[in-house]
């Protein structure tokens, strides 16, 4: 009885009694959702262009952040370190395409998925081998003090992250719509065979896609690394991005953002208001349950491509 009350009555009463707090939670959820979207964007890019579900995106985020911090610790000024990291990520993308993707062309998606799992383990170990397992502090001068807007507590850092994510999405949108390479990427995403037949070099496109995903990973790594410190646990962030992908659809960039917002808000609101009924710490699985519920009604996600199966 008390449990039913805690689920169906008490949270709504609480929301009614503390409206400002509820708004704070929602705003915090939206902003943290944007952070998830940053990671999800990398997944979407690669899936869109090559049909591969890149489980190694989390490891790429960690690797990018580690490289950046490592270079900065060795004395390189910020800009040089950034450029150096970008170069490293591009080389990594080329290596991945050559070593992992090319030999596995035409294999089933599940094989490719498992290859990316192997890749994520490799990058984990390699990054830590080169740069060490200690927590590294990433400080790019992003302000992180909390501020109050009309009684609602908001963190400056989260606002900056939201801005960065918005800029990134806008840049990617322009890239995909207006440039030649962007058109080629969209063509490859639609149909590999057709793209090949009009002369679009598949391997080059894949290398470009993985590089762009690496760069997106770098941005995500910077934001998450500043927030949490650069350390092995950063790879767990990828697990947070999976429900976002399911909700938004694997192939949609706006879907990644919208999915991130929904998951972020849902997670935080559930944890704060419904969490005590369950004893707390329900965030983790709640996001997945939310995504699962969506999946049952819309298997391709909110914005994803409808799955057409042929016998």
């Amino acid at each position, binding site marked *: 009885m008390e449990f039913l009350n805690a689920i169906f009555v008490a949270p709504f009463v609480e929301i009614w009694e503390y409206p400002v707090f509820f708004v704070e939670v929602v705003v915090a959820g939206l902003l943290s959702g944007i952070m998830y979207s940053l990671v999800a964007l990398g997944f979407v890019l690669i899936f869109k262009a090559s049909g591969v*579900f890149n489980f190694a995106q989390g490891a790429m985020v960690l690797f990018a952040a580690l490289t950046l911090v490592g270079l900065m610790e060795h004395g390189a000024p910020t800009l040089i370190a950034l450029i150096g990291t970008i170069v490293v990520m591009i080389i990594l993308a080329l290596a991945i395409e050559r070593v992992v993707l090319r030999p596995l062309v035409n294999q089933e998606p599940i*094989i490719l998925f498992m290859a990316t*799992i192997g890749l994520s383990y490799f990058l984990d170990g390699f990054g830590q081998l080169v740069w060490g397992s200690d927590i590294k502090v990433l400080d790019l001068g992003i302000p992180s003090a909390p501020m109050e807007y009309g009684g609602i507590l908001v963190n400056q850092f989260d606002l900056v992250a939201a801005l960065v994510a918005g800029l990134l999405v806008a840049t990617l949108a322009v890239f995909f719509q207006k440039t030649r390479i962007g058109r080629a990427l969209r063509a490859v995403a639609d149909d590999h065979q057709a793209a090949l037949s009009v002369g679009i070099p598949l391997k080059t496109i894949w290398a470009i896609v993985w590089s762009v995903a690496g760069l997106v990973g770098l941005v995500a790594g910077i934001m998450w690394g500043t927030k949490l410190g650069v350390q092995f646990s950063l790879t767990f962030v990828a697990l947070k991005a999976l429900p976002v992908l399911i909700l938004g659809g694997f192939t949609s960039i706006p879907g990644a953002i919208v999915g991130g917002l929904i998951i972020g808000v849902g997670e935080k609101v559930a944890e704060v208001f419904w969490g005590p009924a369950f004893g707390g710490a329900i965030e983790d699985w709640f996001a997945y349950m939310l*995504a699962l519920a969506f999946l049952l009604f819309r298997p391709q996600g909110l914005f994803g491509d409808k799955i057409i199966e042929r016998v």
Partner: protein
Amino acid sequence: MFYREAGQFKTSYSADQAIFPIRQDRNFLVALFIFAYLAVPMIANEYWLSTILLPFLVFGLAALGLNILTGYAGQLSLGTGGFMATGAFAAYKLAVAFPDMNIVFVFLLSGVVTAIVGVLFGIPSLRIKGFYLAVATLAAQFFLVWVYNKFGWFTNYSSSGVISAPPRAVFGDFFVTGSSAGAIEKYLFTLTLVLVLALAAKNIVRSHIGRSWMAIRDMDIAAEIIGIKPLATKLTAFAVSSFYIGIAGALWAFIYTSSVEASAFDISRSFQILFMIIIGGLGSVMGSFLGAAFIVLLPIFLSNAPTLFGVTVAVDIISHVEFMIFGALIIFFLIVEPHGLARLWQVGKEKLRLWPFPY
């Protein structure tokens, strides 16, 4: 030369349909059993028994369960850890609630409980396929581990959330759990249980149930058209797979580590078992065990290799190299032999048939 079946005639249907129709195979198997039951307890030291052979058997069983689901029925699942946890905690509650029940029944019942839980989490598989299903099973993984962590009922309200296996004997004085159980008793008991279950699994996948699983895996819409019921088939796959994984989890908690907390069954455990079936070979009973052996032995080999060669390497470098080799090996296997070690074994046997001729 040795591996020919010339002169072996089958005179009954049952002989024809035997799992090992070739006499050399049967002889090899008998020799293997004699070695495993008699020779190993005599020559292996405690370290080998309790740290290498025991986890190999337990993981082999878990990999077998996952192989049934992912390799034979094609439903990619990342919730193995959660189901192992279910088996472990179910076994604990049963053992504590019914102290007089034989431990074998405790394990079997915990498998049944896990099968029920598995069916519940398998229901989404009717709508969702492929990666989406993998992510849905992640929901099961996180939720189940959270449940066992959160509700004190599962751990008998211990303040730390750790369950400790009560001492139980299979018969008389033959203790297999608790501190009085010796490594040899644990090994023999686990070996017997795993062999019986593996035999059962082999028979199931050869039956019409197994064939319907493989039909769903290969072309599920076509299978539905010819009359295979996807609901029953997929849920059966989840049930049988979870049964095996649950027993593996109970064995893990009771016999291998003798005390366990829910976080021992987290997502890295699920990935570990998935790697076992990838490397061992999807859709193969023996492949599960080969993969388990590989994954169990590799870290030990990597930690001991430097000392063998007389070089001292820092422990953290070894750990990182282990990760790298893990990942590299997975990619290597997927490129070179997507069907895993089991396929290599098969190819070896085929070459052996022709030996000493090359073709």
